[in-house]
């Protein structure tokens, strides 16, 4: 049975194709301000992206009309969204709070949330990883890490 109109438009490939078309069209605007020779390659690629995305969109909609179900992008959407959010939060925490504190919290937190629940294992792993990073990068290679914008650094 063909999919309903709503679900046809929310198929992952259709949404991706639409996203590419909108983004590529948006990026085409600044090319008008460039010299023609500078704009040649980027404009060609953006137009290419639009044309190819239209082809992808049409092909996916044909599949939908034929009743071919869209493959789900993930079997565990909550876990995927959670993982992305944790990674982004970790980056923000490093930026605003500082690298070492954020890392010492993130390693056990991520592992705990996603199923590794041994407190001793988590403690040992955190100490080893943070200690090794400090010894190699901070002490050994004088690498600077984010110290946190909250603290005025």
């Amino acid at each position, binding site marked *: 049975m063909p999919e309903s109109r709503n679900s046809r438009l929310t198929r992952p490939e259709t949404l991706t194709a639409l996203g590419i078309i909108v983004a590529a069209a948006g*990026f085409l605007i600044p090319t008008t301000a460039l010299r023609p020779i500078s704009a040649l390659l980027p404009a060609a690629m953006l137009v290419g992206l639009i044309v190819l995305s239209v082809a992808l969109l049409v092909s996916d909609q044909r599949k939908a009309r034929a009743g071919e179900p869209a493959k789900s992008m993930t079997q565990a959407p909550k876990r995927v969204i959670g993982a992305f959010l944790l990674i982004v939060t970790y980056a923000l925490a*490093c930026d605003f709070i500082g690298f070492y504190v954020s890392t010492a919290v993130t390693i056990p937190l991520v592992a705990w*949330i996603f199923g590794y629940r041994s407190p001793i294992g988590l403690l040992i792993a955190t100490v080893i990883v943070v200690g090794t990073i400090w010894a190699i990068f901070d002490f050994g290679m004088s690498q600077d890490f984010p110290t946190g914008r909250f603290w005025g650094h």
Partner: protein
Amino acid sequence: MYSDLLHALPDVFAWTNFAAVVIGVIAGIVVGAMPGLSATMAISVLVPFTFGLEPLVALGLMAGIYNGAMYGGAIPAVLLRIPGTPAAVATTFDGYPMAQKGEGGFALQVAVVSSAFGGIASAFALMLLAPPLSKVTLLFGPSEVFWVAVFGLASIIFLLGGNPVKGLISACFGVFVSVIGSDPIYGNDRFTFGQLEMLDGINIVILLVGLYALPPVIDLLETPLKTDGVSSSKLGTQSLWKALPRMKSFWKTWLRGSFLGIWIGILPGAGGSMAAFMSYNEARRTSKHPEKWGEGEPEGVAAAEVANNADTASALIPALTLGIPGTAVAAVMLGGLLVHGLQPGPMLFRDNPDIVFGFMWQFLFGAILLVLLGGSLATNSFARLLNLPRPLLGSVIIVLMLIGVYSIHGRMFDVYLMLGFGAIGWVMDRLKFPLPPVVLGLILGGFAEENLRLALRIGRGDPMILFQNTTSLILVALTIAVVVGPTLKKRYIDSRKKA
């Protein structure tokens, strides 16, 4: 031509360079043994850490990881019937039944010796074929270089298989990313949106880490893998010296598999899985007991493993000489070379012979080192890697990704950019958009644009300059063949089926 090869040898034996290969091989085995992680991902994460290292140390690590990971993929393939890397799928056919019979240790030793054999053959192929090919490419002018770039992109899009529309979208995206930043000739900003951080363009490492490291981390956290505890006592591992005589009869399979692996490695877009399948099928076809295959035939493990390692160094033949990588790992390695200011192509051999030939030696030593890691203690230890908790591994990789990308310029802007590319990479991965064309588009995009514009200036704006010599026309013909060939082949197969 080959004198540079011998000249480069002493540098490889400097202890730092040699230690890099050893560490790389061990790290590669660890990564390969973890289902979901791959050599591509490991090298992507590693590349930013090599900024401050000598080129041969960095390249030694990469060569070691590539060799080690190809063997490491056999560990879960044999013990869990889960290929650690895509190239290890064919290893499961006979490796897992061997483990079920209590011969898992022997299966891993067959895998390690076969991997070493394939890797050594591949390194020799790289040493023998790359130097003469680089001499030919020295004769190329701007229009030929432009067509080489177009041919490279076309071959990776159309020979990779899958949906060519998706391949083309990936390539267009990669080329578009390559033009972000200052125009190389006029200096005006393109798509920087006032961000000073974007003026120099997008660093390839940011893209590599985002595309190749973030999606596997999400996979690690998304699906918990139950291993039921792999115990080394069930492996039945014996000393390698006792195991070697049982492998004597595999020599024909090793030679055939090496040849196939090298050939497939040179072809852009093919890769280790295809090599392993072809080698496995050929070995079974010529076997005296094909009925035993699939039930625990050690020669099946040998056939698959020799071929998937034989395509490692050979994939670098077109990569180092023409800038066209044969596999995704080779594409990432090109990124690693660029980080050290080494532009793949003929000039690489002329300007940095010690480094490029040293890199070839490192591939050879990496392969030899695999044999030393085939003893019972090492085999049992690597088997235990499967018990590592995946969520913990995922969280550690996240930290390494952040450190690596942050350390490029010491700014968080790059980290956010990497996360953006990571999200795009995850969507592309799930929707089966190929990732190698993005990397190749980024590497070759700027290169192609510069040479196209140079050729047009030489020709005073006349585009016919691009078609005015035989080499260019041959490259155009090859590009057309690569684009049209798979469609014609498919039609021919379909018509044969109908008939």
